[in-house]
């Protein structure tokens, strides 16, 4: 408070000494304290149970009742466990159809635990001492002697070890401790990989390779000691059947995987890159000439792996021809090279060129022109 206000204080402070013994009260305003004083703990008010044995007895019975509920619930848990089958369902209000065993076990376990918990708390609140206890605090700081003692011990230790006088030991120890973890780290990092430094696997998909052409015996045909291959067909996911162009009617959507994906060593690792969505739309709606060229009469195939963080771009809205990724709502326009029209992704979904073979099946003459899926450092 400033002097200014002090001067304006009236001559007759009218604070009366109230019955709780406030330290405010002073008749002499010149010596009115600058702050109120802590009045100390208020007088203790006893509970009913402290004075009335009947009330205390009642509390005792309540606590015992809660503990009894717990015991009963525990027994009921055992009974429910033994009596209710794993597959039984029960219809409950609000919750609807629920797993009967789970509900019975959960509720009885809860009652068993709550009985103990509430009983103990009720006991503490009604019967145990409720007079507050005051414990003194002491500063965290150690006494000066203790601190001096600590310094003496540490510097004595340094002295005794002669570490400061023998720099050779000091620096070699530092060096040894500095690098001792390297072998452990090397083993761990070296063993976790493999690291593929060329990130070839992130840049390619199964569409870049072909499947062996089989000869009449069902064996791979060889020419000049090499297996002859042909481009992979588009297969339905998950049944793995080839798709004819004639199957792809206007407005239909196919989830596609490359032919032979289950014959690879790690099909999941291939699926996560090679998944494709095949969409048939009106050719005149397609704005991009390249997109039209790479498709067939408005049937176009795009990578189904989001260019944001790699979720499947699974939601196709036919009327707006938008593809939406359910993870972070990146939206791609199928009519315009699958460019991003909203959301956190930056790059369009790569298009897969498709052609139709002599048997009427769709195939991809070559893989994607750019890496699919999320961005990575070496993508460039």
């Amino acid at each position, binding site marked *: *408070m400033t002097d*200014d206000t002090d001067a304006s204080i*009236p001559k007759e402070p*009218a*604070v009366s000494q109230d019955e709780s013994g*406030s330290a*405010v009260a*002073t008749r002499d305003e010149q010596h009115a304290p600058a*702050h*109120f004083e*802590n*009045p*100390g*703990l208020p*007088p203790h008010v*006893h509970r009913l149970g402290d*004075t009335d044995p009947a009330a205390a007895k009642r509390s005792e019975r309540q606590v015992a009742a809660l503990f009894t509920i717990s015991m009963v619930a525990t027994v009921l848990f055992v009974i429910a466990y033994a009596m209710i089958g*794993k*597959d039984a369902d029960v219809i409950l209000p609000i919750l609807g159809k*629920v*797993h009967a065993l*789970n509900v*019975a076990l959960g*509720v009885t376990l809860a009652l068993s*635990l*709550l009985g*103990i*918990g*509430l009983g*103990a*708390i009720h006991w*503490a609140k009604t019967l145990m001492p409720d007079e507050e*206890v*005051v*414990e003194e*605090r002491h500063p965290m700081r150690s006494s000066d002697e203790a601190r001096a003692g600590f310094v003496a011990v540490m510097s004595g230790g340094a002295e005794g070890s002669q570490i400061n006088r023998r720099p050779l030991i000091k620096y070699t120890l530092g060096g040894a401790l500095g690098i001792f973890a390297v072998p452990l780290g090397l083993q761990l*990092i070296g063993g*976790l990989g493999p690291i593929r430094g060329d990130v070839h*696997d*992130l840049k390619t998909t199964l569409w870049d390779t072909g499947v062996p052409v089989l000869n009449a015996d069902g064996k791979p045909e060889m020419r000049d000691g090499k297996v002859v291959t042909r481009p992979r067909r588009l297969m339905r*996911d998950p049944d793995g059947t080839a798709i004819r162009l004639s199957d792809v009617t206007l407005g239909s959507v196919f989830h596609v995987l490359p032919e032979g994906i289950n014959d690879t060593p*790690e099909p*999941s*690792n291939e*699926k996560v890159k090679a998944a494709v969505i095949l969409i048939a739309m009106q050719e005149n709606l397609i704005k991009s000439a390249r997109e039209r060229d790479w498709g067939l009469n408005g049937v176009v195939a795009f990578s189904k792996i989001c260019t*944001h*963080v790699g*979720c*499947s771009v699974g*939601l196709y809205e036919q009327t707006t021809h938008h593809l939406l990724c*359910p*993870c*972070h*709502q990146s939206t791609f326009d199928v009519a315009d090279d699958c460019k991003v029209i909203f*959301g956190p992704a*930056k790059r369009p979904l790569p298009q897969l060129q498709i052609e139709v073979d002599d048997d009427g099946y769709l195939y991809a003459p070559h893989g994607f022109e750019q890496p699919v899926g999320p961005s*990575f*450092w*070496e993508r*460039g």
Partner: protein
Amino acid sequence: MTAVGQERAHSTADALRADDKKDAPANKDGGPVGAVASWVDERTGSAKGISYLMKKVFPDHWSFMLGEIAMYSLIILLISGTFLTFWFVPSMGETTYTGSYVPLKGVQMSEAFASTVHISMDVKGGLLIRQIHHWSALIFVVSIALHMFRVFFTGAFRKPREINWIIGLLLAMLAMVEGFIGYSLPDDLLSGTGIRAMQGFILSIPVIGTYVSYLLFGGGFPGQDIIPRFFTIHVLLLPAALIGLFTAHIILVMVHKHTQYPGPGRTNKNVVGFPMMPVYAAKAGGFFFVVFGVTALIAGLVSINPIWMYGPYEPTMITAGSQPDWYMGFADGALRLLPGFLEFNLFHRTWSFNIMIGAILMIPILWTVMGVYPFIEKWVTGDNEEHHLLDRPRNRPTRTGLGMAAITFYGILFAACGNDIIAIKFDLSIDDITETFRVALIVAPIVVFWVVKRLCLSLQRADRDLLLHGRETGRLMRTGKGRFFEVHQELDAYQRWRLVDFVSPEPMGLPPATDEHGVRRKGARKERLRARVSHYFFKDRIEPVTPLELAAAHHDGHATEAIESHPDEAESGHIHGGAEEIGASHAYGHPAPHDKQD
């Protein structure tokens, strides 16, 4: 209650309890319990330490139970998690489901997923344990967050508790990571999508992103290694770290002794409450059972993460409405709000800031900000004292405003994580929602800061008003001359103390920038910055009522009382209608006898 009545109550209470004490300590040997205790003490000398611990005093307040809930949830997680390991198979090996859940019969899936369905469907009570584990993980992180709010808004992070604040932050982060890894283990479609997204996050790290991904996944995504590795991290590495840090956290609470709210009898040098034995042992022990019981009740009644409905992870499949568990929501929300143009190519390398900011940088940055906040505030206030009395949030308007702004920022990110759900439920355009959140993320925290700070100042004014004017009793009195006024009842010393026991720091003055020779002093710029920040923190301040002000209010009625402590802003409030007409001595401090408090 009269003094005599109280005395009688006292003696009766003692008499009632005297019964209880008779059997135990009166028996010199202490019976079989005493014998065991004696045996242990002779070998450990622990009687002194344990009796010290058992006498330790803990103050009572509901907000102190938030951290307790976190502690108990951790124990529930350890118990239920141990159960789950007996049936869970942490393997990505392919298997065909042959269990009793019909819709999945014959479906190809990983052993991790199959064993999780087995726990849920074929192990009796397995579903309950799984749901207890998942629910208590959710409750664990909620209670940690609420506990952090309590600690922040009451200033419990101040000296000497800065270290414990940082340990708590680490615990919060580990809890989130532990939760994410835990719900990824079943290898179901939803969590598999989460791991897929996580791999996308890792790939966005400059220079080492692809390497980290290869190391973690043992080659390409998803590979065969991620589930077993996550399992080890989830059941061994992180729990060990969590328990270690948690132990340190609790030991420091013991060493510091618990903080307490200001109140009569409570000072910075004492702690007022109940001793561990028997009251706190019963209350806190009982509360563990209550937390466990409520968790079991929820787990019994409310389904969580029904992985059998999602099906096994299949890289080409996805479900609409893919949300992570709630605590990862804010990071996912950030990813939804960050615009795509933040990704660019430079030097033939890809910089994906649209992913990196939300998924890689945000959590470390937020945690760093939270970690340095106590030190910033200490620097601003220049305060080097120990603080054991908590602040009422209203008495620190700037801190409370900053905290609420941070929560708003977090809340908008969290809401943004549900932008698709909001769009569907409210039939709104997802683009509009996202754009709105983008703007709100910047604007709303500023608005909230301003509003909350003003609210705090208003509440402080209301406190002063209450203290200076007393409570409005609603009783009208008529004077002999026929004038009416409302009787105001003065607060008693205990009620008053709650409202005045705080310090309102003043903004730091600026020392002269040059010394007596007119030369720039060293560090003058730093001091200027400090003075500026201090001014920002404390320029709007309201001081606790002093006895002089109260006296003035009593003496002069409403003419000189200062609701604001700034003398220049002193109000001459005509708040109470006719009261001032008849003079303060009638209006204050003289409630009718039957109104007096007991």
